[in-house]
């Protein structure tokens, strides 16, 4: 007997037929066929359930979920939610009058509600160190299909039609990359996986490699067949020891089962995959630099063309894709390009994984359909801003990306729309910032990063970023001058135009976007000597608003300098000569009574006193 993952038991009793269960049957059969789920879902008409008053009744096995009073119009939604996204639909469910579920379902919690798991479909469900757990969830079925039933051209066609774009940042169409490489004739080709997740604030790839290592291998097997490679490397950061261990275990198991190595599944196709540990250089996320690193050299980019698909690792045609890209491949092969395109927008298909961090309540790894507005991600999935603070910006794309302000929160997350804001979708780091973050300081942070990580090969990046950083340091330390903002903008354009690789070409983005959306902050730093967020020490004065202070004494207790004094229940004050501007009181005060004033705030007062 065939086994189905879901068995639907539709009541065919007289009562239910009377209330329309045959129409439901047709609607279900239609919808199941339309979604291509015939092999997964069985539909049986059963005898009377005895709940005729609630009919038509549908029972879903093995979940044992009981739907009642269905109409044909409900069916598409039900199939989509329950059988595709896996979320039983509460509103159709039978409710006992007295007893309501006290435990919310996935649908009740926005964090889960807006997510659709594809690349992460096995997250939290399988034991990553057990290959059979993976196989039981259709693992290696796509590889089997690709190796035994498909030609390389067919694989490429499917991936091209799916519209999948590289999830590492640049968004280059994966199918096209494969096609370009497949066309090149060579005695040796390589397939590489980029697990050198270097953006600060991003951990999507780490999670996939840790939670579902086999999916990466399977994606690589399919890609290897498409381009005709028989040797692969997974380049993983040495900072991810758990990912390295689990991948190695996965490779060993796959070899033991004959899913890697010679003549995989008797298909005549062979592939060997090795792990290569990176040594901590952000620039190695750039493809040509990564290849130099595997060759055992300094990871420095080289000019293109020739492109790696023609002349890559050791001069041979090479395809490099990101971890998440590979994680999408098996599902595309199994379910088809159409299925993949059913989510997302025309030019940005499918789903994208993000590492949502920073000032939101729910920090985590999420997967959402492309095209979802940023606002939904931050306020629904992320649960809004922590401690009731105010949203200021969301940083996308790490050091190559930018900061998007409140006014653009309805921007849909697609490659095209995000680029218009000056940021990039990037590999998926999404850091939310609240009003306690200084945007000039954030720009400085990213520039410090790129300056340090610049490999030093080309002067625009090596020297240009340094000069920009020096300017930003000046501004954040109170030495900003008129014309600095314009100079930064100018320099940024030059660096973007003349740098050799993506690192330099995108390094100015965080500065440009913060100037574009938060120019007032730059100006208040330069002209008012005031960092309104109280982050830049040289440009802030902390004082207590006597009207708001309740005299609870929390700040005085927390102050490391004992600079705060005052009687219980009476407004406290800060002795400016002792204050080291550590922000502790500002963070601790529950009443918002500690405020940030400009650098020279008390200078005038002192003069007044003297006068």
């Amino acid at each position, binding site marked *: 007997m065939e086994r189905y993952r879901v068995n639907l038991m539709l009541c065919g009793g007289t009562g239910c037929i009377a209330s329309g269960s045959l129409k439901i049957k047709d609607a279900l059969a239609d919808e199941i066929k339309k979604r291509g789920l015939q092999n997964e879902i069985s539909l049986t008409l059963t005898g009377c359930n005895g709940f005729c008053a609630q009919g038509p009744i549908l029972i879903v096995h093995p979940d044992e979920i009981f739907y009642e009073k269905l109409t044909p119009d409900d069916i598409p939604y039900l199939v989509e939610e329950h059988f595709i996204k896996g979320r039983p639909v509460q509103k159709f469910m039978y409710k006992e009058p007295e007893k309501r579920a006290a*435990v919310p379902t996935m649908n009740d919690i926005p964090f*889960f509600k807006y997510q659709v798991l594809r690349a992460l479909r096995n997250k939290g469900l399988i034991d990553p160190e057990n290959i*059979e757990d993976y196989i039981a969830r259709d693992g290696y079925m796509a590889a089997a299909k690709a190796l035994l039933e498909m030609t390389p051209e067919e694989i490429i066609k499917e991936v091209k039609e799916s519209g999948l774009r590289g999830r590492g940042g640049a968004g280059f169409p994966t199918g096209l990359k494969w096609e370009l490489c497949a066309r090149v004739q060579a005695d040796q080709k390589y397939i590489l996986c980029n697990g050198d997740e270097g953006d600060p604030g991003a951990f999507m790839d780490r*999670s996939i490699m840790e939670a579902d290592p086999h999916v990466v291998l399977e994606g690589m097997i399919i890609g290897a067949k498409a381009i005709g490679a028989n040797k692969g490397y997974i380049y993983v950061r040495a900072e991810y020891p758990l990912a390295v261990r689990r991948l190695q275990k996965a490779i060993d198991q796959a070899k033991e089962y004959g899913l890697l190595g010679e003549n995989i599944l008797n298909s005549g196709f062979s592939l060997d995959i090795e792990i290569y540990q990176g040594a901590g250089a952000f620039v190695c996320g750039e493809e040509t630099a990564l290849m130099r690193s595997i060759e055992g050299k300094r990871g420095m980019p080289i000019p293109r063309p020739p492109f790696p698909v023609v002349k890559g690792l050791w001069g041979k045609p090479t395809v490099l894709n990101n971890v998440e890209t590979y994680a999408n491949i098996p599902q595309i092969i199994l379910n088809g390009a159409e299925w993949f395109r059913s989510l997302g927008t025309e030019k940005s298909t499918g789903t994208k994984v993000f590492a949502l961090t920073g000032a939101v309540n729910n920090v985590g790894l999420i997967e959402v359909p492309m095209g979802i507005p940023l606002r939904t991600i931050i306020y629904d999935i992320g649960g809004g801003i922590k401690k009731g603070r105010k949203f200021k910006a969301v940083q996308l794309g790490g050091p190559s990306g930018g900061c998007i302000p409140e006014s653009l929160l309805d921007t849909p997350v697609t490659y095209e729309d995000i680029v218009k804001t000056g940021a990039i979708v990037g590999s998926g780091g999404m850091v939310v910032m609240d009003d306690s973050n200084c945007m000039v300081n954030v720009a400085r942070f990213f520039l410090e990063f790129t300056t340090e990580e610049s490999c030093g090969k080309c002067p625009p990046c090596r020297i240009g970023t340094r000069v920009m950083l020096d300017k930003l340091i000046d501004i954040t330390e109170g030495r900003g001058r008129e014309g600095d903002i314009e100079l930064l903008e100018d320099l940024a354009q030059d660096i973007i135009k003349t740098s050799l690789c993506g690192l330099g070409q995108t390094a100015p983005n965080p500065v440009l976007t913060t100037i574009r959306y938060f120019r007032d902050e730059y100006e208040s730093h330069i002209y008012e000597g005031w960092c309104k967020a109280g982050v830049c020490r040289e440009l802030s004065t902390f004082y207590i608003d006597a009207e708001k202070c309740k005299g609870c004494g929390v700040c005085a207790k927390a102050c490391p300098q004992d600079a705060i004094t005052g009687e219980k229940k009476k407004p406290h004050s800060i002795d400016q000569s002792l204050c080291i501007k550590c922000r502790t009181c500002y963070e601790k005060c529950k009443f918002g009574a500690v405020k940030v004033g400009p650098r020279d705030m008390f200078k005038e007062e002192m003069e007044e006193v003297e006068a």
Partner: protein
Amino acid sequence: MPRLTIEDLKRIKEQHKAKTALREGAYRVKVTVHMGTCGLAAGAREIMNVIMDELQKAGTTDVVVTTSGCAGLCSREPMITVEMLNSPPVKYCDLNEEKARKITKEHIIGGNVVEELAFVQGCETSY
């Protein structure tokens, strides 16, 4: 192991599914402890030890405890998922030793969802 064929692959899939599926007379409850980097750092290993300890004390044999990777909601780690025959899986988060003991006794062994600690029920994916 000899070289796999596509038939072997399908066989493994069905056998493994059958083996791990919850059913009467075999495993009644499956507990998944989420052990990604976040989970481990937040103390998932200790939670697992506590659950094992309680199960051992109670002499329970129809519960399978397994580990998995990140569950996605890093700020609420450590996290476990309890799946019981014939009911949707329930996730518990922000666990500590005390909570883990209570959940083990009342839900995993006793069969009653600890409502005040349960975070969500259901499964994010089914295909």
